[in-house]
């Protein structure tokens, strides 16, 4: 286990057919009516509050869990709160098939582990133990032993920012 390895249980965001939800936008993650809030600790209670079926997510998620989603996670607005609300709840990070560019930056800058893993669909069940190796850019699913490659791979700058504890701590 290196300093760039993060493990935790999966909290997959699934639709009624059991498939990973695509295009979860920032208004579903953190609705615009709460944008005036600037204190991180107040943001957790609104996480996914506008995603159908997940309104009670803050009560259901436990610290150290991975958010697992489909394509284009975090599309929409540039709001940092859409990342910070997961930090506030102590989530391990985000694993998605693909992530919208602004959201990806915001998560990296916050030091929240995030990876884009094509081929993730159908592989993860709730509670699965997932390990992200940010050095090797791999995601390991303990239950099946599957090792999936993050693409594009985790960049050096992402590791640097993660090590520093966020962009603002980078000298």
């Amino acid at each position, binding site marked *: 286990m290196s300093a760039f390895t993060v493990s935790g249980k999966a909290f997959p965001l699934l639709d009624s057919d059991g498939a990973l939800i695509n295009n979860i936008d920032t208004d579903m993650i953190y609705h615009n009516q709460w*944008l005036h809030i600037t204190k991180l600790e107040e943001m957790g209670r609104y996480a996914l509050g506008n995603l159908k079926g997940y309104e009670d997510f803050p009560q259901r998620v436990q610290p150290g869990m991975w958010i697992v989603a489909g394509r*284009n996670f975090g599309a929409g607005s540039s709001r940092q709160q859409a990342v910070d609300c997961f930090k506030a709840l102590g989530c391990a990070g985000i694993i998605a098939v693909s992530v919208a560019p602004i959201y990806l930056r915001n998560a990296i800058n916050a030091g929240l582990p995030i990876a884009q893993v094509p081929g993730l669909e159908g592989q993860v069940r709730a509670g699965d133990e997932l390990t992200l190796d940010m050095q090797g850019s791999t995601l390991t699913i303990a239950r099946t032993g599957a090792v999936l490659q993050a693409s594009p791979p985790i960049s050096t700058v992402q590791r640097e920012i993660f090590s520093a504890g966020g962009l603002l701590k980078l000298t």
Partner: protein
Amino acid sequence: MGATIIERIVAAKVGRPVAAGEVVWLPQDIVTARDFGGASVVKNFVDAYGKDARVFDPQRIRFTFDCNAPANTVGYATNQQICRDFAGKQGIKVHDVDAGIGSHLLIEQGLALPGTTAIGTDSHYNILGAVGALGQGMGDIDVASAFKKGQIWFEVPPSIRVNVNGRLAPNASAKDLTLAIVKHFGSDGLLGKSAEFYGEVVEQLNLPGRITLASMGTEMSAVVCFIPPNAIVLDWLEPRAGARPESIAADADAPYIKEVTLDLGEIEPMIACPFSPDNVRPVREVAAENVRLDSGFIGSCTNGRAEDFASAYAQLEGGKVAERVTLKLVPATREVYAELLFSGLLEKLFTAGALVHNQGCGGCAAGQVGMTGEGEVQISTSNRNFRGKQGAGRTYLASPATVAASVRAGRIVVPEVVQ
């Protein structure tokens, strides 16, 4: 090997050639924060660098209050005041609640020119691709860091070349072209890419039309959409920049990850149905389903220019907004408001039944010009119709002409051909 537009912009800033996938520290010509995110930028900056820390260059930083302008909640009002106080201390200019949409101000004031790098806490900052500038929307950590460093880390994205073949139908406009393109690519079809648009139908677009197209790059998850600036754009920018800016173009042998040709034929009026901007259909089909409307909205960074309101009025002329339907108008900036006011267009729109609000992001920002209620059906020139974004109702996205024709009819209709 040549360079794509984004590679040329980045290379000029870092002083050496760059390729897609490289990570660089990219100097920014201008760094901005809105009232949305601005207070968090200030908080992050002070927490990280100390209360006596100075920004890298106050001349190259702006606050633009456009999201909740004027503030209609105490939370927003307080956030704006936090920004004003910080700006006063640091010597930063504030474009206050009467100024309008920040990204549009950069274009109007000649601050965003071909090759300019700019960031702001606005996910539609890539709108600056309309003038060949690399604008990016960013979160408040990125912007706080850039306040201090004047640069951002940046992974040069791969570029995609999009050749658009087709022509606009006489009752269609840049928004219809844009929606046709969003329909083709879908909400993640340009994810993480720098897209360059070519083809006569794109090149003929005036600046507002280019703004419309570039703005919806975000709805395809692009990093930025460039429309190489031609004489139309340079003529517009010249008096504002004080000199004729140099244009920017890709090299003939630029390395694109992909080249896509869209054969759109005759582009008819298009409409994005609830609840996704890529749920696009011809207006003709939706009109046949007799969709009754409660409200309409014309404005936003996508369609808030004077030309957009003129195109809307052409559909309202000689008539009125239907009974029991409200049409809300929000000019993008104070300059646009002035154009409407002094040209007499505002009076005509008012007389036709429109409700005219002050300039800004109203209509997209929560509650600024009212929300939609449960069951309400709205047609809007904005760029997003996600569930719950503008309230509890259902929002359709269309051109100013389609919105105006539809609120006149009281239901979604195909706009008339007007001379």
